[in-house]
């Protein structure tokens, strides 16, 4: 008779931030069917309250290093840092959504509860200490996002985006799952620490390496690294803009969280192998992202390629597999999230002739009519370029500095050249806003209180990060330090 396996200890405290979000999602679902049936405006407020509750839980739990469910779920500073980034993005996106959906008349309970479910999935990804949890959390996040991408049911492009995202996402998930299976086969465990212990003796085994390759394909899809990026522009363009913002920030942050933990903790033994691959992926991703962005006329597609390019920069920080690089990536994610959510949010506020204003030419002369919004959007673009004193500059500075210190001079040179290329397409939008005369019907902007507040928060974020980066950079380094030991 096999020995009796004791039931795992239930320590819900470790899941507290995730549970708060899930509870809020459930409340939203229930409230959705209760009166008032014709107005759903209050549901956004409930969702926002849930996220704020989760933020409080995160702050409360700060500094703990707890693990539960047989080390399947970890609540360490690393997870909490990502929870913070994800919840921040989610909060801003809920605020933008209240404005955006209210205007298109499509506010509903499902939207907010799905948003919360995917948030919970993202947070769980950051907490995953086991490959099974990584996969489950990733699916929870992804399935919710597939639906959200197609949320504008009457709009053909929205359905197309959802379908493409789902099909390719399922394809990528199968790679990930296959990789997990191979790793399990080679090491006999799905727990990250035990994989590390087992793999230490059998690094070069082909089964581990093929498993690693498969998992990288899966993660590469989620972070939209070249050549697994092709879904991104189509999905970003078709999905509702608020959902696009979440896909571009939250899901990327979560995928990075899981990927860094898997690579650095479980597969550290194979570091020379994945370093070389990440070098190539980083160079390829940033170059393709930036170069193709040059040829875009649709603002959402432009931002899609721009976000691909930013992933390229972030991969650069992981190439060394240690040192200040991973911390710089965490900081970069924070700065990137602040900026990108803000940029998509600002775009979501603009409409032209009843349609969303998404063509670059729609923004001609915006500064004349809406100087504040144009200035805000310009600030986000300047931060994406990396102009001081905004967040994007400091983030790039830390990241490039870390790469140089790790000895990757050529990769840094490629990144700097790429940054120069990137300045062109971002500045083009600013040129349109400030130096071109508007033609045809002007862009209408009607930000509500929630939208205005969210924009203010995002601007404050990039300015504060840019002017006083030190405390946040320290936070990022402290968060990632235990993993690198």
């Amino acid at each position: 008779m096999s020995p009796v396996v004791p039931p795992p200890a239930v320590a819900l405290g470790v899941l507290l931030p995730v549970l708060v979000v899930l509870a809020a999602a459930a409340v939203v679902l229930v409230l959705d069917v209760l009166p008032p049936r014709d107005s759903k405006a209050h549901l956004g407020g409930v969702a926002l309250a849930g996220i704020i509750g989760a933020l409080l839980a995160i702050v409360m739990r700060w500094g703990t290093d707890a693990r539960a469910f047989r080390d399947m779920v970890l609540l360490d500073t690393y997870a909490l840092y990502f929870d913070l980034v994800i919840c921040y993005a989610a909060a801003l996106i809920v605020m933008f959504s209240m404005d955006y959906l209210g205007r298109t008349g499509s506010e509903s309970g499902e939207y907010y509860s799905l948003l919360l479910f995917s948030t919970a999935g993202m947070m769980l990804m950051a907490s995953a200490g086991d490959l099974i949890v990584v996969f489950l959390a990733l699916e929870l996040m992804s399935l919710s996002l597939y639906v959200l991408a197609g949320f504008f049911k009457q709009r053909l492009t929205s359905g197309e985006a959802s379908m493409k995202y789902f099909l390719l996402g399922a394809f990528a998930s199968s790679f990930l799952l296959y990789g997990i299976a191979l790793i399990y086969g080679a090491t006999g465990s799905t727990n990250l620490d035990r994989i590390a212990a087992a793999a230490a003796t059998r690094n070069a085994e082909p089964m581990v390496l093929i498993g690693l390759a498969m998992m990288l394909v899966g993660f590469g899809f989620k972070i939209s690294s070249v050549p697994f990026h092709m879904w991104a522009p189509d999905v970003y363009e078709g999905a509702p803009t608020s959902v696009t913002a979440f896909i571009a920030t939250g899901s990327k942050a979560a995928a990075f969280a899981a990927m860094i933990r898997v690579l650095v903790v479980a597969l550290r033994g194979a570091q020379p192998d994945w370093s070389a691959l990440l070098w190539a992926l980083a160079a390829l991703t940033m170059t393709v992202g930036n170069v193709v962005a040059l040829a875009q006329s649709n603002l959402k597609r432009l931002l899609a390629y721009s976000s691909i390019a930013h992933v390229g920069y972030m991969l650069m920080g992981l190439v060394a597999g240690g040192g200040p690089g991973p911390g710089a990536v965490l900081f970069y994610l924070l700065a990137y999230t602040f900026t990108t959510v803000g940029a998509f949010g600002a775009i979501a506020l603009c409409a032209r002739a009843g349609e969303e204003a998404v063509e670059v030419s729609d923004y001609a002369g915006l500064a004349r009519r809406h100087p504040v919004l144009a200035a805000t959007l310009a600030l986000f673009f300047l931060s994406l370029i990396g102009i001081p004193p905004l967040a994007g500059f400091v983030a790039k500075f830390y990241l490039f500095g870390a790469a140089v210190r790790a000895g990757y001079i050529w990769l840094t040179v490629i990144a700097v050249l790429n940054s120069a290329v990137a300045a062109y397409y971002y500045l083009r939008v600013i040129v349109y806003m400030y130096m071109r005369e508007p033609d045809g019907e002007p862009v209408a902007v009607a930000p509500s209180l929630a939208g205005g507040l969210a924009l203010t928060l995002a601007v404050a974020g990039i300015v504060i990060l840019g002017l006083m980066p030190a405390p946040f950079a320290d936070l990022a380094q402290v968060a990632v330090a235990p993993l690198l030991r």
Partner: protein
Amino acid sequence: MSTVWLIPAFPLAGALTNIFFGRSTGHRAHWIAVPALGASFLFACAVAARVWSGAPFTTTLGAWIVAGDFETGITAYVDNLSAVMLLVVTGVGFLIHLYSVGYMHGDPGYARFFAYLNLFVFSMTMLVLAGNFLLLYVFWEAVGLCSYLLIGFWYTRDSAANAGKKAFIVNRVGDFGFGLGVMWLWTELGTLDYAAVFKGAATLSPATATGIALLLFMGACGKSAQLPLHTWLPDAMEGPTPVSALIHAATMVTAGVYMVARSHALFERSGSALEVVAWVGTATAVFAATIGLVQTDIKRVLAYSTISQLGYMFAAVGVGAYVAGIFHLVTHAFFKALLFLGAGSVIHGLHGEQDLRKMGGLASKMPITATTMWIGGLGLAGAPLLAGFFSKDEILGAALGTEHLGIFTLLLAGAFMTAFYTFRLLFLAFSGAPRMPRDVLQQAHESPWVMTGPLLMLSVLTVVAGFALGLPLDGSRFAHLLASVFHPHEGEHASVVVLLSLVVFGAGGLLAFYMYRQSAVKPEAIGQPRTWVHALLLNAWYVDWIYDRLIVQPIYVLSVALAQVFDVGVIDGIVNGLGRAVSAWGAGLRRLQTGYVVNYALTMLAGAVVVVAFFLAR
């Protein structure tokens, strides 16, 4: 958090309010700007009282830049020297703000003016408070920016816009050196904090210390308008007169003196750097005084006088008499601000007339202005028992005491010229028969109380400051106050110094009396070069002309050549070519994005195959 930060915080808040809400504050802008300065002054008094009765202290607002092994904070260092500077900046600043209410009344840029003025006081107090060289450098630049903005305040006037640019560019030359000095300091000592730097100065080799000190002094030459970077200050008189009084006489231009005195440990380590400071100061003092002898614009006389008096301050710190230098800085702030504000009052009363040749006989029309300006003028000229007498004598005494006979002689000659040009100005403006057109004369009027009030306050300070701070002659109260900052220097208050300075004061005054009061003034004769010496002085020794031919024109010609040939042809050609190539590449790659899911999936699969192959091939 220390209350120290409130001193700059009030003017900053005032500046931000008037920048962002200038449209609504409009002609009421002073209700924000003036009380902000008042509050700032009160807190400066509180901080000064605390430091004088206690010990110097350091307070940090937070970490500022942390990059690798470079770390610096937003730190204030407050000792008796910074307290004195704070009182001068906020106190004189307050009076000048008050005066501006009357002087700038009705100007379309009223709110903007007060916003800039507040911003300047914020920057200047931060400069004084800074506890490390980097913060000092940042606000060193910030006061330069404010100076630029205020010189070009009436930017629609070409001459004002050009003067602003000139001030900025000439200062860049000095600040380039200053920046290099700061960097060199860091590479040598690994820190920029005052305490650590001044302690570490002893470990520097004298040659290194000389290099660093001279680079820092380059910055001081720019900011304090010393030879050879003095040319911007006379042109800066294009700004409104309160600006000339506050920035270009009382406070900003003295930043260089403050910096050298503050860094005296570094300059002393070098030794020869101090000699350079002393000689540059002396040369400037005499050089500028000679030009002041013949100027016909009332503000330009005062501008050259300011350059000259700054030279005295540098001469003082150069011979190691830091207390004397700072003392002269303080008294000069009082009487020169007074003279500028008085000149502004005259200009205001004459509807913009600045030419001394078209003034005269104003004493009866503007009694308060005339009286207070006479007091300020006597203070500047070194009349016995007024502020300038004490501080200038201390400088002369120090030069003699440290056996710098050449410097002593030159400064004495400078004092003679100072007395002459000051009395000349006063006689030409206030005595004799009026020389302005009849309608201007009839409309000439005394200024309102907001303008005369500050004049009276500054006159009181000019009269009292000498007694209050300069006595007793051997070891004054002021020296006692700064004893914790500077070790005592060898001063000589030999009666011979007092006697000689009284003689040159009297001689200068009498000569001016003979030339401009006794004999009838022939306005058409003034300002007409009669001899080559006169022409040389009228043209300010042709320095601007020489700079223009030697530096500006060649650089301009070179720039045009580079811009039109090299930049357009080579650089733009490469950039545009590369840009086109990359864009074409992007357009090509874009075609891969077909929109078909199958293609996307196949790409992914191909990617996966490559990744696996990559791993297995290693």
